[in-house]
């Protein structure tokens, strides 16, 4: 094991959603390069607790890069300097002894800070609720492979379905747009046969919800794609735009029916 590093942290501290918040500096004198970024924060927090201070609040759960809970703006890059990496999978070997690291929460009007580095990302859940589902009659399952799906479609759908909803796309976007998230959720269903009946209504509703939540619009900077830990392409945003445009021209208004068949 190589030697330890001294890292100086500049961390956003904010007691609650309405408090003003400010940066505070902390020195971590004995950081191992084998630590993950969150383990480094754990060690800093241990010391804060021992000193009778409030630990730094940050979101985390699985710590294996698949749950989408963690997410920090690290030196101006969402999830830090490593590509295709969540914050929990970022390791301190990406930094060097004496480095100064600025840690900020995701910044968006739709993502209010709850405390320190923790933000409220329920707007993303509401975008899903607006249309990120398929409506099927439940009951006995049909045979596997009863519905053939071409390999390219299945692959593309899975690429979109890789989205873990971490919000890095919003955080990295100069417009604080959630277009990449919304596009991924629209596309992973819209590329499969099961997603076809509601495909265009889904685009209308999820885009409407995205606007309602106060996210900015997409100007195709491409920053979201670079920040995405799952490498989701802005081609899905293009697909969302196409679905939305087609929906706006062709989709009939929803009717209230008795549903008596």
């Amino acid at each position, binding site marked *: 094991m190589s030697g330890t590093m001294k890292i100086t942290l500049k961390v956003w501290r904010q007691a609650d959603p309405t408090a003003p918040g400010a*940066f505070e500096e902390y020195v971590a004198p004995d950081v191992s390069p084998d630590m993950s970024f969150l383990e480094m924060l754990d060690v800093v927090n241990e010391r804060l607790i021992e000193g009778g201070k409030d630990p730094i609040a940050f979101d985390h759960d699985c710590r294996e890069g698949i749950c989408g809970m963690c997410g920090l703006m690290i030196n*101006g890059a969402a999830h830090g300097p490593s590509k295709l990496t969540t914050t929990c999978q970022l390791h301190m070997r990406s930094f060097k002894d004496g480095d100064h690291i600025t840690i900020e929460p995701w910044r968006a*009007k739709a993502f209010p800070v709850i405390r320190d580095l923790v933000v409220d990302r329920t707007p993303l859940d509401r975008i899903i609720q607006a249309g990120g589902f398929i409506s099927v009659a439940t009951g006995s399952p049909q045979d596997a492979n009863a519905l053939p799906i071409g390999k390219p479609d299945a692959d593309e759908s899975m690429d979109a379905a890789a989205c873990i909803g971490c919000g890095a796309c919003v955080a*990295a976007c100069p417009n604080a*747009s959630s277009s990449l998230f919304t596009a991924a959720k629209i596309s992973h269903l819209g590329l499969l046969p099961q997603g076809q009946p509601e495909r265009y209504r889904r685009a209308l509703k999820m885009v409407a919800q995205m606007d309602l939540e106060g*996210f*900015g619009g997409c*100007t*195709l900077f491409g920053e979201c794609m670079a920040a995405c830990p799952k490498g989701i392409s802005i081609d899905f945003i293009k697909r969302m735009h196409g679905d939305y445009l*087609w929906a706006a021209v062709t989709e009939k208004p929803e009717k209230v029916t008795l549903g008596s068949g």
Partner: protein
Amino acid sequence: MGSVFAPNLWDMLKFWNSSVGKKVVMGVTGLVLVGFVIGHMAGNLQIFMGQVRYNAYAKLLQEDIIEVTWAVRIALLVSVILHVLSAWQLTQRAWAARPVDYSIREAQVSTYASRTMRWGGVFLFVFLVVHLGQFTLGWKWLLPEFIRGAAYGNVVLAFERPLWVAFYLLAMFFLLLHLVHGTWAVLRTLGVAKNAAEPLARRIPWIIALVVTVGFSLVPLGVALGVVR
């Protein structure tokens, strides 16, 4: 009940109110304007075919087919208004979407062209007003020697002044950036681009942007270098 291809007013308002709808309007009007700058650039190059030819071209547009010219002007005016309005409103929304900014945010892959769309666009609008005032409306404070109908002479008089040459070349630089991002983005806004391994690559947009802006720049440069006089 809206039927296919017959959206009612309410649907159109909903479309206009959505971020994607405004973006589509900005893209479609942008395409109209791209078509215009290509034609305008090609027409301007006739200045290298001499005074008689150039003034005849000006007369064609301003007298012989003035009805067509007016139809095009109205389409362009509507396009510019909708383009600027949608850009303005989307910018306001984008700025409102991040009330507290980061202390640092490093651009990862976004291009200089994409980051200058807004302020570059403002500059291009100012340029548009000055350009129309100078060569179409004949504002004397912009070009004291302006003579209506003497298109060739007006161009030469303007570009014998180095400051005007510099101003026009600067405008063409911003037009270059605006076209590099705009012509690339519009296909993604309308959902018609193909999936790509490198979706951020902009080869054909660079060609379009360079042809248009170099073509335009040849006119002030031609006068400044004494090729056109």
